[in-house]
C-alpha cells in the first residue's frame, strides 16, 4: 500500500498592500495607532460616518431631483397652457404666420397661413418650397408661375423687413414680410390685402373719375395731358373740345334731377362711342364735357368730329318715358403738344365755347386769340360792375311815351345808365347781359325799380312809369315782394307802375313766372309784353296772361313806310290788341311819317326819338309841361 503523502500547503501568497479608495486610505491613516497598528473602533467610526454622509447626500439628491421634477412638471403644464393660448391667439390673427428655424425648416404655422395658401396642414421640418408645393392657390395657372411666386417670396422676403406684394393667379393680392429672429430663424407674415387693395383702387378710380358718368374727371384729364406732354413728339398736335349741352337746364328744371342725371349718363355713352380709344372724354362738371383728341392730323378731321358730336347729341334721347331733345355747342382749341399748357388749353376751349354759344345753339367754334382779348375785357367789366353797384354809379334815364291822338305824355320808360368814371355814360345793352351772367341783375334791377318809382311819384298822376324786367329777376321768386317794397317806399300808386317783360321770360319755368306776374298784378301794377314780334310772337303768351299792353318792337316801326311786311305786322298787332282790349305802344318812332301810319293803324301810344331821347329825371317834368302846352295849343 502506498500512502500518498499529504499535500503540501500552498505557498504563501505575497501579501501586497490593498489598493484603497482615497477616503479609505485617509481613514486608515487617521485610525493608525502610534505603534503602526490600526485602531479598529476608530476606523469603523470613520467608515460609518462616511456611509452616513453618503446616505444623507443621496437623500438630498433624491429629494432635490424629485422636487425639481415636480417644479418642471408644473412649469411644463403652464408652458403647455401658454402654448394653447398662443395657438388660439395665432390662429385667430388676421395675418398668416410661418416660423422657420435657422436651417430654414418650418417650425409652425398658424391656421390663417394655411387658409391663405389653401393648405390642409403643414408638417414641421419642411422647407418653404416643400410647404408651398401643395398650395392650390399658387397652382391655378402654370407650374412656372407657381415657381416664380415661391421664388419671389423666398428671394424678396429674404431682404429682412422689406414687404413684398404678390398678385396671385386666383386674383388675390398678398403681402409677405420676413422678420429675422434671434435664433437665426425667421418669421414670415402673410396678409391677404385684396379687399384693402380693391378699396384703394376704387378710391383711386373715384378720385380720377366722375361719380355719375364714370368718365374721367379733371384730375385724370390733367394726368393724361401731363403724360402726353412727357411723351410729346415734335409737331404732334392735339385738340381740346369743350362742349356744353343746349337746353339741359330746362330738362333738369322740368323733368327733375334724376332724369337730368340719366341724360348726362346717356350723353357720356354717346360721346365715348364717337372718339378713338386714346382720346379722353371728360365730364368737367354740370352739363360740361371735354374731349381731348390726340394725334390730330387736320383741322378738317376735328370739324368733322364736332359735327358728328353735335349731330349725335341732337338725336332725341328716350329717358324714363320722356322724349328729350337737346343739342350741344362746342368750343375747340388746337395746339402743338410740346407747347401745351393744360390750363391755357382748357381756358381757350372754354372761350371758343362761349363764342359758339353766342353764335346760336348747336354750333362749334375754333379758338382765336381775339376771344381772349374779349374775355379779358369782359372780366374787367365784371369787376367794374361790382364796383359800380357799390359806389352807386348807376343812374336812371326816362324816355317819354306819348298818346298818339293827343300827344300828351302818358308815361316814361325807365332806362338804366352807367356813369362810368372814365368812359362816361354807358347804355344798358353794353352791361345788362353781363349783369345777368354774373348774378348782379337782381341788385341792378331793384335799384332801377326803386329809383323809377320814387321819381315817378313826383310826376302828375296821369303819367305812368314803365320799368323793364329781366327774365332772371323771376328766378329767386321774390320779385312780387321787391315790387311791393318799391311801391311802399316811394308811395307810388301801383296803377301808375307798368312792368315790361319779354317773351323769353315766359319760356323758363313758366308756372313760376306766371304766378309771380299774377301776384304783381294783384298789387294793381300793370304788365306789358315788350319787344313783341321779334321772338316767338306766340299768341298763346298773350292768351295765357292778361297783359295790359303790348309793345311793338322798333324794328317794325323803323320800316313803316318802306316795308309792307312791317306794316302788315303792325296792323295785325294793333288789330289784335284792339279786339282783346289791350293797349298797344310803338317803340322807336323817329319820323312824322311813321307816326302818321301809327295814327292810321289806331296804335294807342308811341315813343322814340321823334318825341325825345331818354332824358335825366330833371328834364322829365319840363318835358311833360312842354307837351301839355303843345297839346293845349293844338286843342
Amino acid at each position, binding site marked *: 500500500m502506498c500512502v500518498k503523502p499529504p499535500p503540501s500547503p500552498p505557498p504563501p501568497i505575497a501579501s501586497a498592500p490593498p489598493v484603497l479608495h*482615497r*477616503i479609505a486610505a*485617509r*481613514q486608515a491613516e487617521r485610525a493608525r495607532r502610534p505603534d503602526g497598528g490600526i485602531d479598529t473602533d476608530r476606523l469603523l467610526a*470613520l467608515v460609518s*460616518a*462616511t456611509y452616513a*454622509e453618503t446616505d*444623507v*447626500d443621496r*437623500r*438630498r*439628491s433624491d*429629494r*432635490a431631483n424629485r*422636487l*425639481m421634477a415636480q*417644479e*418642471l412638471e408644473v*412649469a411644463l403644464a403652464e408652458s403647455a397652457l401658454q402654448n394653447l393660448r398662443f395657438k388660439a391667439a395665432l390662429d385667430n390673427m388676421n395675418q398668416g404666420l410661418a416660423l422657420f428655424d435657422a436651417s430654414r425648416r418650418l417650425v409652425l404655422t398658424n391656421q390663417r397661413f394655411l387658409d391663405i395658401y389653401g393648405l390642409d396642414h403643414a408638417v414641421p421640418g419642411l422647407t418653404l418650397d416643400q410647404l408651398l408645393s401643395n398650395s392650390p392657390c399658387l397652382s391655378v395657372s402654370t407650374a412656372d408661375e407657381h415657381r416664380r411666386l415661391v421664388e419671389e417670396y423666398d428671394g424678396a422676403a429674404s431682404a429682412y423687413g422689406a414687404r413684398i406684394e404678390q398678385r396671385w393667379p386666383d386674383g388675390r393680392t398678398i403681402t409677405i414680410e420676413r422678420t429675422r429672429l434671434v435664433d437665426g430663424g425667421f418669421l414670415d407674415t402673410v396678409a391677404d390685402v385684396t379687399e384693402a387693395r380693391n378699396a384703394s383702387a376704387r378710391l383711386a378710380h373715384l378720385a380720377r373719375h366722375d361719380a355719375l358718368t364714370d368718365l374721367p374727371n379733371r384730375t385724370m384729364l390733367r394726368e393724361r395731358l401731363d403724360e402726353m406732354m412727357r411723351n410729346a413728339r415734335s409737331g404732334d398736335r392735339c385738340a381740346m373740345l369743350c362742349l356744353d349741352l343746349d337746353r339741359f337746364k330746362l330738362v333738369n328744371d322740368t323733368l327733375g334731377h334724376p332724369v337730368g342725371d340719366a341724360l348726362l349718363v346717356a350723353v357720356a355713352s354717346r360721346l365715348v362711342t364717337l372718339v378713338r380709344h386714346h382720346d379722353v372724354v371728360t365730364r368737367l362738371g354740370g352739363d360740361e364735357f371735354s374731349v381731348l383728341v390726340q394725334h390730330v392730323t387736320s383741322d378738317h378731321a376735328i370739324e368733322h368730329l364736332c359735327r358728328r358730336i353735335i349731330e349725335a347729341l341732337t338725336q332725341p334721347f328716350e329717358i324714363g318715358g320722356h322724349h328729350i331733345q337737346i343739342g350741344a355747342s362746342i368750343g375747340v382749341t388746337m395746339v402743338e403738344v410740346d407747347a401745351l399748357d393744360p390750363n391755357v388749353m382748357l381756358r381757350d376751349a372754354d372761350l371758343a365755347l362761349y363764342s359758339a354759344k353766342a353764335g346760336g345753339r348747336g354750333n362749334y367754334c375754333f379758338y382765336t386769340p381775339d376771344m381772349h382779348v374779349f374775355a379779358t375785357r369782359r372780366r374787367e367789366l365784371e369787376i367794374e360792375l361790382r364796383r359800380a353797384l357799390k359806389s352807386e354809379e348807376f343812374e336812371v334815364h326816362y324816355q317819354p311815351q306819348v298818346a298818339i291822338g293827343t300827344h300828351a305824355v302818358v308815361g316814361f320808360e325807365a332806362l338804366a345808365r352807367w356813369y362810368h368814371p372814365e368812359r362816361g355814360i354807358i347804355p344798358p345793352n353794353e352791361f345788362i347781359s353781363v349783369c345777368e351772367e354774373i348774378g348782379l341783375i337782381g341788385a341792378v334791377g331793384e335799384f332801377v325799380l326803386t329809383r323809377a318809382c320814387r321819381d315817378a311819384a313826383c310826376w302828375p298822376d296821369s303819367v305812368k312809369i314803365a320799368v323793364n324786367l329781366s327774365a332772371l329777376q323771376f328766378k329767386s321768386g321774390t320779385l312780387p315782394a321787391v315790387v311791393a317794397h318799391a311801391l311802399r317806399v316811394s308811395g307810388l300808386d301801383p296803377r301808375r307802375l307798368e312792368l315790361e317783360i319779354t317773351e323769353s321770360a315766359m319760356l323758363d319755368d313758366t308756372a313760376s313766372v306766371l304766378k309771380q306776374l299774377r301776384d304783381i298784378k294783384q298789387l294793381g301794377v300793370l304788365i306789358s309784353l315788350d319787344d313783341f314780334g321779334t321772338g316767338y310772337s306766340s299768341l298763346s303768351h298773350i292768351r295765357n296772361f292778361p297783359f295790359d299792353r303790348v309793345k311793338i318792337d322798333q324794328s317794325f316801326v323803323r320800316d313803316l313806310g318802306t316795308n309792307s311786311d312791317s306794316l302788315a305786322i303792325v296792323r295785325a298787332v294793333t288789330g289784335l290788341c284792339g279786339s282783346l282790349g289791350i293797349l298797344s305802344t310803338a317803340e322807336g318812332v323817329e319820323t312824322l311819317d311813321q307816326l302818321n301810319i301809327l295814327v292810321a293803324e289806331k296804335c294807342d301810344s308811341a315813343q322814340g326819338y321823334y318825341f325825345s331821347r331818354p332824358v335825366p329825371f330833371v328834364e322829365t317834368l319840363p318835358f311833360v309841361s312842354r307837351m301839355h302846352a303843345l297839346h293845349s295849343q293844338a286843342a
Partner: protein
Amino acid sequence: MWSKQINANRESAMFPAAPDLVIVFGPTDRLADRTLIDRLAHRYDTAMIVGCSSGTMVEGDRLDDDGVVILGMGFDRTELRLAVQPLPSSDLSFAAGAALGKDLSADDLSGIFVLSNGLNVNGSALVAGLRTVIGDSVALSGGLAGDGARFADTRILARGEHHADVVAAIGFYGDHVRFAHGSAGGWQPFGPVRTINDAAGSTLRGLDGEPALALYERYLGEEAVDLPASGLLYPLEIWDPAHPDVRVVRTLLAIDRDAGTLTFAGDMPQGWKARLMRGMFDELINGASTAVHHALDQTIAWGTSPSACLAISCVGRRLLMGQRTEEEIAAVAAALGPDIALAGFYSYGEIAPQNQTAVPCLHNQTMTITLIGECA
C-alpha cells in the same frame, strides 16, 4: 520672506525666526480664551497678531475642527500696518470698509487682507466701502469669520483682544510684496430659473411670488430644522437679466421665521434672476483646484515663488462634503507643493478679486486663494 504654518496644539512647533505677522485661525471658544491670547502675545511679541474664528481650520493638506492654526510670516522689504474698525451692525458695513480704507491708504499700499466678524456684516457693502477709498489697483482679499454650523458667535482677534463686532485689515506696503488670487465654486445650478420679486438689501422674502423661506424648507425637507446652516447646501446663483453672463453666488447666512425672510451674505437685487445650486463632491473639489491654479498662474510673472497661501473656503462646502472636504484642501496643497506654507479657514463669506475682471468682491460658497510672496 519666510512663511510657516504651525498647529498651536503642538507646542514643539517653532518658526524659523521671529515673525513679523502672525495670522491665527481657531474655534470661537479657543479664540476667546484669554490664556491663548496672552501666550501668543508673549511668544510673538514683535509680531502683528491678527486672527478670526472658524468651525474648521486649514493646516497644510489637513483640516482641523478643534485646533488653532497659526501662520507666521517674516518680511524683508515690506511694511505692515493694522487697522481695526467697529462693526456692530451690518448696516454699518460700507462705512466700516471706507474707514479701514482711510486708515490704511498710502501711496505705497500694495495689498490688504481683511478679516471681518461673520454675522453682523454685509460683505458686499464692506468691500464696496473699501474700494471707494483704495480703488481697484490695491489687491484685496480676506474673509468673514465663521462658527461652523452654529452661526452663533464669531470672533476677530486683533491688538491683543478678541471682538465679536469688529473688522480688521492688514495693509502691506512697498514695491516688493506680491499677491495672487483665485476663486472658484464648482456648484451647479439646477431647477427652474426664478425671479427675485421681493427683497431689500441682503434680505430676501420672495422668489416668483412665493415665500423664499418656504422654497428652502421644501428642498431641505427634514434638514430644514437646521436652518440657517443647512441652507448652505443650496446657495443661489443670481444675475442681472441685462447682463446674464455675469453671475454671482449668494450663500444663506440667517433666517427669520417670523418675518419669513432669508438673509444672504450679499445684496439680493430685486428683479434679478435666481437659480438654486447644489454641490457634487467632485465638482466642488475641481472648483478648489481651479481656484489655486488660477492664482498660481499669476505668480509666473513674479520671478520668485510665493511663500504663503491663505485658503479661505466656505462653510457650506464643509457642511456638504463632510469628511471629503479634506479632498479639496488636498487638491490645493498638491498644486502648491511642499514649499509654500498653507493655512486657512472655513468662512461665512470669502473676499477676493473676480477671476475674470480682477475686481474685488464678496464670494459665497467658493474656495478663494491668496498667494503672498516678496520679490528681491
